[in-house]
């Protein structure tokens, strides 16, 4: 055996921090609740624990699910967050509303729906490109047929 490689430490803490951040954003964004800072990890796929110095080391690929606790004006609430990590990048994230009080149900619902970035289009002439890729251009026959049907539908 040669030297012992110092493997990048896997750390389940940092995804946790990310998720706290998510929830904090959620809570602050909708401005109705105060995060109390108590975050309870309920499930996670990573097992190794180590010092926080291993920050930004590589994390194990996989899905991480957590449930966050916070105190709403009406009392304790929870919210579920699931992120998918691939090569250290969050490739998918999903929020599951778990609230019980009507107001919290409403706000968690709004958050769950809106927190993922929504894709927008930019006009082709504003963007420097050589080619465009998309649905294949329709064959001419197809277009002609559509026009014919449209014309027939009008008469």
């Amino acid at each position, binding site marked *: 055996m040669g030297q012992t490689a110092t493997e990048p430490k896997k750390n389940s803490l940092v995804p946790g921090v990310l998720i706290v951040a998510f929830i904090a954003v959620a809570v602050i964004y909708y401005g109705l609740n105060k995060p109390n800072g108590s975050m309870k990890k309920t499930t996670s796929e990573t097992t190794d624990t180590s010092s926080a110095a291993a920050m930004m080391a590589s994390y194990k690929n996989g899905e991480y699910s957590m449930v966050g606790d916070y105190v709403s004006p009406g009392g304790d609430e929870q919210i579920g967050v699931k992120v998918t990590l691939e090569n250290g990048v969050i490739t998918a994230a999903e929020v599951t509303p778990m609230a019980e009080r009507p107001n919290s149900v409403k706000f968690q619902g709004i958050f769950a729906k809106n927190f993922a970035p*929504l894709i927008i289009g930019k006009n082709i002439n504003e963007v420097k490109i050589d080619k465009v890729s998309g649905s294949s251009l329709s064959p001419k*026959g*197809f277009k002609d047929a559509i026009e014919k049907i449209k014309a027939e539908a009008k008469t």
Partner: protein
Amino acid sequence: MLSRKLRLKQKHKFMKFVFDAIGTKWQVDIYDQISKNDSVLLLEKINNRIKKYDVVYSRFQDDSLVTKMSLKKGMYKLPDDAKNLIEIYENIYNLTSGAVTPLIGQLLVDSGYDSKYSLFQKRKLNPPPMWNDAIDYSFPNITLKVPVLLDFGAAGKGYLIDIVSKILEKNNITSYCIDAGGDIKFANKNNGTLRVGLENPNNISQVIGVVEIKNKSICGSAGNRRKWGNYHHIFNPMTMEPVKDIIATWVISDLALTADAVATALFFVQPKILSNDYNFEYLVLNADRTINISPKFPGEIFSK
């Protein structure tokens, strides 16, 4: 930046072939120096090869092999090049539990996507037969256990792009771009990259992002341009409905065949189902305008 350099340098120099084939518009750009005579010969080779492809695989031609096969069961000899195409179809068929299948031809015809583009549903739609019930491929022969109309629309275009690229390379062309209706293969022996805009399916005068490729293929798939009635051409034979929750996919890979097949498959399965067998980067645009994207997708996506 590099791509701009390339464009400026060669804007008025490179040879450009534009033609219609397999139901879409093709543009082949050749960045190598090539004489007019050679380019005419080259274009002729490409056109002849595409004709040979159509004679076998086009279900839009009355005299094609697949049209003949749809009328009578039995054993048919396929050209040698069919091997790669049939093999990827068979594998993707298995990986998508039959959702991507060349046996979908009749279903597309019945729903209106036929050679005359009638675009009217003709009869009650029936699910396509299972692979093992219908076909048995043993190079170079394919045996049809029942007469069945094969449709190679999911990967055939990518495959033909690869075939055309091989013709170019055989003729010592090393830097080129093949664009078949938005499915693109770009090769460059120099430093240039190609910037490809990703068409916004909701507004074709827009793009939702830009990728940079070099010596790669990019294929996109979306239902927006070939729509009729309640249908578009990406159809799930399991549910007998067009796919609704995903509106577009893009895949970057070495081969256009892989990119094309995987782009279609991503309408039906998660990327990880396919990534064991194929190397690719992907972008999936969902109907709610969220995305799934591979970590190393080489581009920028616009979001708010």
